[in-house]
Every structure is written in structure tokens, then in C-alpha cells.
């Protein structure tokens, strides 16, 4: 089966040829259709760069990134992005943010205003924001803003969800709750064929293990593929999953892979 997304020998460097900073070096991996793939690694491993390139906001210096076998040449509505700090439009209400892509972008083309309203309502209900539709982002807590960003993402109904540390700014309790919400919205209770493809960038190892089907581990300076770890925890996952011995084992395994580099990074 053809992978949904394929990275083939991707290199990325910034700056001029002579004193270029190499962010990614010879990176190759696949993302399968309907899979939840997490990318972890110490800071400076180029996680966000990978995501930006998949989003089409950046392009590789050499190598190829194929989406359904075709090279990515720019942003596309079939790939939705959730940014690290949510990137909500401060001048639009919760509703205004969620319907933004449907109103002005490709996802809304050919959608009647009635269907659009329905989709926005559904998205608001799905992320649990009913009642807060008319609030502005600055009136919301971090967790609520995260829900708005998620609602905006699902309202556009992209095939592929690209998430850049979407839970990093939240406190620990909220993060745990939203991890489970995220899995529910992604559709972990449904059959694998109906699920959407997710690439989830994070620096939290337990978060990656809890959410993902596979975890891509990167090393830093420059970013290289270190390992791909299969997460064989059963779905649906919930609070019980975190207590299981296998969860701890997998987390430990990934931690061993990056511990040395993570430690070095703190001394810089």
C-alpha cells in the first residue's frame, strides 16, 4: 500500500551556503493513511521544520516529500495545521475563528451557507465549546483556546492533521484531559479506515506513547532519524493505559534513545 506521506532523503539547511545551519539531514520515513504518528526528539532536532515542510510553509533543500505520490509544493486545504501557540485570530470570536477557513478559503468552496453553519456548529459541539461561541480568544483560558484551534482544524475537514506541540503550553492536568479528548475527536473508537492521518510533534515522551500508533525519534544537530518505535498499546486508550507496564516500558525505551542528547541540550 502506498504511504499517505513519504519523506525521501530530506535535507534542510538555513542561511548561506558557507555558514549554513543544517537543521535536517537525510531524513526518510513514511506516514501511513489513518495512522497517528508522533515525532519526538530533543530541542533543536528540527521537529517543527519537518511539520512546516509537510504543511507547505517551507520546502526541503534537497530530497522529496510526497503526498499520495505527488511532491508537496505549497499549503493545501487537505492538510490542516494546528500551531504551537494556536495562531487564533484575536479579532474573531470563537465561532469566527472556527468558520474562517470555510468562509474565505478552499475548504468552503462549494459549501452552502447552511451546510457551513452546520459544520461549524458540529465542530463547536465536538470540541466542547457550546456556549462560548461569541467569546474572543483573549477571554479564554489556555485549554479553551486549544479547543478553538482544534475546532478550527476539524471544521475544515482536512485529510491530514499536522499538530505542532499543541498541548505544550497547558498545565499538566489540562494536558491529560485534552490528550484523551484529542483521541476521541480523531476517532480512536472507530475503524481504522475512517480515521484521519495525524502527525503530532511533541517533546513529551509519555504524550507521544499515549497518543500514537508509531513514534518517530529524531536526534539533534542536525536532525536525523534515530528510530521508529511501534506503540502496540491497545485502543481505545484511557487512564488505564497510562498505568500499564507496557506504557512505562515503551516510554523508558524512547527515553533511553534520547536521554544523552537531552542532557547535553540542558548544558548548552
Amino acid at each position, binding site marked *: 500500500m502506498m504511504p499517505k506521506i513519504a519523506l525521501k532523503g530530506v535535507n534542510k539547511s538555513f542561511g548561506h551556503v558557507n555558514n549554513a545551519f543544517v537543521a535536517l539531514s537525510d531524513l526518510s520515513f513514511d506516514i501511513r493513511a489513518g495512522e497517528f504518528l508522533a515525532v519526538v526528539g530533543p530541542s533543536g532536532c528540527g521537529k517543527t521544520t519537518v511539520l512546516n515542510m509537510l*504543511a507547505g*510553509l517551507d520546502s526541503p533543500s534537497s530530497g522529496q516529500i510526497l503526498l499520495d505520490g505527488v511532491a508537496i509544493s505549497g499549503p493545501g486545504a487537505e492538510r*490542516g495545521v494546528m*500551531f504551537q501557540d494556536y495562531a487564533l485570530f*484575536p479579532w474573531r470570536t470563537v465561532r469566527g475563528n472556527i468558520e*474562517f477557513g470555510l*468562509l*474565505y478559503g478552499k475548504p468552503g468552496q462549494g459549501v452552502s451557507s447552511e451546510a457551513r453553519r452546520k459544520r461549524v456548529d458540529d465542530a463547536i459541539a465536538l470540541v466542547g465549546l457550546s456556549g462560548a461561541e461569541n467569546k*474572543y480568544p*483573549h477571554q479564554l483560558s489556555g485549554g479553551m483556546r486549544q479547543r478553538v484551534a482544534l475546532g478550527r482544524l476539524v471544521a475544515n475537514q482536512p485529510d491530514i492533521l499536522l499538530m505542532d506541540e499543541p498541548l505544550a503550553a497547558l498545565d499538566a492536568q489540562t494536558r491529560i484531559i485534552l490528550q484523551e479528548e484529542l483521541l476521541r475527536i480523531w476517532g480512536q473508537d472507530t475503524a481504522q479506515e475512517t480515521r484521519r492521518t495525524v502527525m503530532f510533534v511533541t517533546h513529551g515522551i509519555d504524550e507521544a506513547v499515549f497518543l500514537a500508533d508509531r513514534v518517530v525519534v529524531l536526534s539533534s544537530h542536525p536532525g536525523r532519524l534515530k528510530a521508529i518505535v511501534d506503540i502496540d498499546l491497545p485502543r481505545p486508550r484511557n487512564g488505564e493505559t497510562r498505568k500499564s507496564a507496557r506504557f512505562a516500558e515503551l516510554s523508558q525505551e524512547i527515553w533511553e534513545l534520547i536521554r544523552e542528547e537531552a542532557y547535553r541540550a540542558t548544558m548548552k
Partner: protein
Amino acid sequence: MRTAPAGRPPRNARAHGVLVYFRTMLIFIGIWFVGAMLISNRLLLPSPTSVFWALLDAARDGDLAFHAFTSLLRLVVAMLAAAVIGLPLGLVIGLSRSWEDAFELPIELLRPIAGIAWIPLALFMFGIGNTLPVFIMFYTALFPLIIGTAAGVRGTDRRLLAAARTMGVTGMPLVLHVVLPSALPSIIVSLRLAVAAAWTAVVAAELVGAPSGLGYAIEYFRSMLATDHVIAFIVVIGILGSLTDKLLRLAETWLTPWSRDRVLP
């Protein structure tokens, strides 16, 4: 120093604020009254009461309304002209590097020349009349508007632009629904600065080069040695200036409810 109370102050605090306001103004007027009695020269310092009667007088015979209306109308015309030219120009300068290159030099060369310094040349070009004060105000307001708009456009959060692009929003919708709203707070602040500067300029322009308006009125009454009327019209200039600013502040909270921290120069 102290933590400011958030939101609207409680009612008795507001009542107290009103009380303090009137107390201070009463004391100020009292000092003025005593000073006027001591000097006892109506030409140098008329008492508050005679200024009040002069104000009433001007209001009754229509002088006040006529001059105030004339000045305000000129302000509105000049601001509209400045906005029609300044806002689009600021937008393209903020959006495009080559437009910025093309306009930066003339703007930076003309901007330091105060609008008021154009008065003698404008006298020659337009003569005494309506055009001169409108031109001076237009010129004064134009640069803050261009620069404020361009800065607002340039300051658009790159992440918001990226977010919109990943939703397939590009071209005109991107400018209309991301760049402009994000620049709006900066545009409104520059509009307030522009109006304040133009209001200062109109007095000077009318003082020298117009047969009507508030600036003309104070100069006219000075030449008539009617100091009480001069002060009455100064009061009117102050009140109208602060009312215009209040109005724009209201528009600001109404138009940009999302921008919480408004830093004002």
C-alpha cells in the same frame, strides 16, 4: 505602584471621581477669580464670569456655532482626504517591498517639514480661504496615517498569515480578513494622532490664512482687545479637541474589542 482595579470602577468610586473633578475645577476657577480681582485689568486677565458671559454672548449671536462648525467641517474634509490617500498608500507600502522603496525617500524627506511651515507657501498657492486650512490639516494628518498603517500591516503576526495560508486563504481574502484586521488597532491609534495634530494645525492655519473658523476668531477678538472672548474661544477649542478624541476612543473600543492593552503616546 498600586495594582489598578480591573474593569469598571465601582459606582461610589466613580461618584468620588466626579466630586474630585468638580472640586479641582472649582478651586482652579476660584484662583483665577481672585487673580483677576487683584490684577483688575480686563484686558490682561478677565474674570471667569466675564469669560462666561462672552461665551454665552458668542453662543447667542451664532458666532460660536458658525466658527466651530467651520473648523470642524474643515477637519472632517481634511481627514477624509488624508484617509482616502493615506490608508491605501500605507497598505501597499506595508505589503510590498518595492512600493516601500519607491515611497520611503519622499516620505522621509517631507515628513519632518511641519504642516505649519507650509502656511506661507500655501498662502501663495491657495490664497486666504477654505483651501488653505484644509490643505495644512491634510498634510499634517497624512504622514501619521501612512506610517501607522504601514507599520500595522508590516506587524501582522507571521503565524496568523501561515495559519490562514494552511486553510487555503490567499490573495485578496488574506489581505481583507487577516492583514487589515490585524493592522486596525495601529491604524486607529494613528488616526487619533493625526486628528490631534490636525486640530493643532487648524488653529495656526486659520489664525494666519482664513476668514473664518476658531483660529480666526481668537485672532479677531485679540485685535479687538476683547480678551474675554479670546479666552472663551480658547475654551471652545479645548473642549472640541478633547471631545473629538473621546469620540475616537469610543470608536476604538467599538471597532477593536479584542485589543485589550492600548498603549497611548
